[in-house]
């Protein structure tokens, strides 16, 4: 699954550690999400969507 996490983070000038702190996850989790090595759980995806004020499908796109 592709996502726009890195772009959204960069727009706000947040580091991976900044975003991790806001989402209450580790910095490694943000890195794994951004590099496509890990797809978030639904609760985390909702949390990310709420934080950026966008619907989930605007942040995460199915690669099919």
């Amino acid at each position, binding site marked *: 699954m592709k996502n726009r996490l890195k772009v959204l983070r960069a727009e706000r000038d947040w*580091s*991976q*550690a900044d975003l991790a702190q806001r989402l*209450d*996850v*580790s*910095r*490694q*989790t943000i*890195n*794994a999400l951004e*590099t496509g*090595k*890990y797809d*978030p*759980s639904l609760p*985390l995806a909702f949390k990310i969507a709420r934080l950026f004020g966008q619907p989930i499908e605007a942040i995460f796109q199915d690669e099919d």
Partner: protein
Amino acid sequence: MTAASNAQKLSPRARRALILMAVGAPVGFAAGRVLVWLKRQGYWRDLEFSSSDVVSLGLATFLVAVGLVTMAVSLSRKALGRRINGEEETRAATPAQASFYAGQGGVLVLAAVMLAAPPLAGALFVPLSPLLASAVMTGLITVFLVQTAGNITLWVRSDELMRRTMAETAAVSYGLLQGLLFLWAAAEKLSLLPPLTLWDAVNVNMIGYLLISMIVAWRRGFVD
């Protein structure tokens, strides 16, 4: 160009490695000299270990080293912050992160104690009396219970990526290692391979688990 300016160009990781080498080499040399002196004076007798015992002691040494380094880093929230947030990050780790990493180091050290105690007890106390063996076993059960509680606490405090990594490691380890165990047992039954002791199986299980956990962690992006 001076040595000082060269040193400043090194990355923090390379500087740390150099410092560790500079400290480790003389400490290792001195420890070796002390052991040779002890042996010459007759204070040290050769301990007899089977190859399986040597493997478990090697594993225990590795685990205790990683565990102690993790615990040591967790003592400095600034150093831990750089470790988990990247070298460029200046913020210190939170107290919760520091205690989490200290806990991780702690369970590794306890795992090392559990792996080292049986072969060491058998080699240090010859013959090993039933009373002493029972005392060692009681201690082992206690350490096992504390370590299990520690592992459960770490699971509860982990975020979802860490839990996924632990769950995948457990699933792959189970599938692979029980398959290998079956194949070895079948070959042993057919007299094609030598018999394994349960302690051998524990060693294989531990080595397999460590390797699988490293591969899963790497695949999941724990290594930048």
